[in-house]
């Protein structure tokens, strides 16, 4: 019994000693700068090169795949054009799997179309030092070498990949669906335009917010108060601001007819200048150019909350009878709308920012939701030719709803119920879209 116990103890001691020795040995490899040298054979020609599709040229896409064990390593990409070498990217995480060598505003001829380029990857466990980066692009570096090393670590060099040439595309295939949609809507638009010219009556549903424009302007006139028109914090390149400016033209015409005053505090000087022109033309068209005052369309500031403070102050001082909030609004929307509510003004709001719509619905008397704002100009003018664009939009909406329904049915039958035929059709639809 005793003998057995001694043997057992001896075996356990030996086992512990062996495990401890193994742990010591494996612990040491973490600090070994040559740890990645065992991966040397695996790199080979690891880079896949291709021209970036659907671009204007001057761009190469570089892809790579590595073992999961190397995902935390760093990768540096070197480009060779003849004898000239260049670092494309350094210290990228190997797991990123892709980098693009492209032209930039600073260097417009970085990648020249039609020129042959070769690429090499350098893999390292730690970030690459500047000395090594300089060495990688120097003439004396042998690109056939598989490793180089400095005092800190070993660098693995892949085989050179290439050649690859970049070229410009004549058509962006990714935008084919957009082109087809644009052709369909333009065709529908022209079709309804023709029908409108032939005298076909086109229907547009009632929009309460726009019916209230006349009421709001009339009420302000009766009260002897001005009208305030706020275009938000968008620029003249934003569609909601453009829509806001077209509505401003219609509202200004009514203001001129009622011989009252309109105030347009602006966030952007270009929008201010455009608004001045729009109001001036509207007053002229109404036959009252004498009532137009350039100083009523003024610049406030290009600071979001500075603008909100400025407009709020103006509202409290001038006490307008009607406030129009038409354009692009963000966090300042409720600050403006609540101040307008506090002074008892009729408020008609409209924006395309879905996140701000609830605030306007809560604080304003009328809110133009998204497309209603885009249709406002047509609605206020009621020109049959302009109505044709609304009819074309509606037909396009029906087409989109039909596609959505087809997608829904295919989605249920294909990925949902795993019927192979419908699954293929569903994937085809996704690919087309």
């Amino acid at each position, binding site marked *: 019994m005793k003998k057995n116990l001694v043997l057992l103890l001896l075996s356990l001691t030996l086992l512990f000693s062996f495990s401890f020795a193994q742990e010591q040995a494996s612990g040491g490899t973490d600090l070994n700068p040559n740890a990645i040298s065992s991966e040397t054979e695996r790199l080979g020609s690891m880079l896949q090169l291709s021209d970036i599709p659907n671009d204007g040229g001057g761009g190469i896409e570089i892809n790579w795949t590595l073992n999961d064990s190397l995902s935390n390593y760093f990768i540096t990409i070197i480009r060779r054009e003849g004898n000239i070498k260049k670092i494309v990217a350094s210290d990228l995480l190997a797991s990123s799997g892709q980098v693009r060598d492209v032209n930039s505003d600073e260097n417009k001829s970085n990648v020249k179309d039609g020129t042959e380029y070769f690429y090499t990857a350098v893999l390292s466990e730690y970030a690459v030092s500047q000395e090594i980066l300089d060495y990688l692009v120097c003439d004396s570096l042998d690109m056939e070498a598989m490793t180089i090393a400095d005092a800190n670590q070993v660098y693995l060099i892949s085989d050179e990949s290439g050649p690859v040439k970049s070229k410009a595309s004549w058509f962006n295939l990714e935008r084919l669906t957009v082109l087809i949609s644009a052709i369909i809507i333009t065709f529908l638009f022209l079709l309804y335009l023709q029908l409108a010219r032939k005298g076909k009556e086109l229907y547009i549903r009632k929009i309460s917010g726009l019916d209230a424009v006349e009421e709001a302007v009339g009420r302000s006139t009766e009260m002897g108060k001005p009208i305030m028109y706020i275009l938000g914090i968008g620029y003249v390149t934003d569609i909601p601001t453009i829509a806001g400016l077209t509505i401003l033209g219609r509202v200004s015409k009514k203001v001129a007819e009622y011989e009252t005053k309109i105030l347009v505090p602006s966030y952007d000087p270009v929008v201010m200048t455009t608004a001045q022109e729009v109001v001036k033309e509207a007053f002229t068209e109404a036959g009252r150019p004498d009532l137009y005052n350039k100083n009523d369309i003024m610049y406030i500031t290009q600071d979001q909350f500075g603008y909100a403070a400025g407009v709020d102050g103006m509202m409290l001082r001038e006490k307008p009878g009607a406030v129009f909030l038409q354009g692009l609004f963000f966090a300042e929307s409720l600050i403006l709308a609540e101040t307008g509510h506090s002074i008892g003004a009729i408020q008609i709001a409209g924006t395309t920012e879905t996140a701000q719509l609830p605030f306007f619905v*809560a604080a304003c008397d009328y809110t133009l939701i998204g497309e209603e704002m885009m249709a406002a100009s047509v609605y206020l003018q009621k020109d049959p030719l302009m109505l044709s664009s609304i009819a074309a939009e509606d037909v396009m909406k029906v087409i989109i709803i039909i596609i959505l329904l087809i997608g829904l049915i295919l989605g249920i039958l294909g990925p949902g119920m795993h019927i192979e035929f419908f699954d293929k059709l569903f994937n085809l639809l996704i690919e087309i879209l």
Partner: protein
Amino acid sequence: MLKGKNIPLAITFTVGLIMIVSFFIPHRPFGDIEQISLKWYSIIAGFTMLLGVDSLLGLHFRKVKRKEENWIHSIVLIAGFVMVVIAGVWGTIQYGSAFDERSFFTYIYNYFIVPLQSTMFSLLAFFVASAAYRAFRARNVDAALLLITAIIVMLGRVPVGELISPYLPKFTDWIMEVPQMAAKRGIGLGIYLGALGVSIRIILGIERSYLS
């Protein structure tokens, strides 16, 4: 024959068409047109800033000159404007950039403008409360539905919601991801089609309100 209002209409049509073509053709020279026009816009916008400053200062100088109501506020504005301009120029001369951390311009930004912006932004909390109070008054079925949904979503977003029922946060997520998202996408669809309609009307010269 191009005359009168036909000239801006022809310019709008040509530029609109070029921009559409450049959207689909990335090859030079079309592919660069968008970037070039954005640069042109930035240059023009830089000059229009002078018009903006002229409008702002002109308005306030007139107020001071005529001693209109609250004209003292206009003096504060003009003095503030002059002070910031001098600080900006002085910072550039002294440190090479007005945005240098040691410059008085940066000091003004950090200790005047940022607290003022924060103050305005924090007012939003009170405005949300007053607007929510009005919106959530259950006057009709729609308002009652809004009130119930808002209560569920608010409770589902705070830890106490999980304490009431572990299903509450999940139900909140479902509300946000399914009915809310469906409505949002529906509105979005209308907006994009509407924007397309506005663009076509302007390019084809049917929408002329900017010309009147």
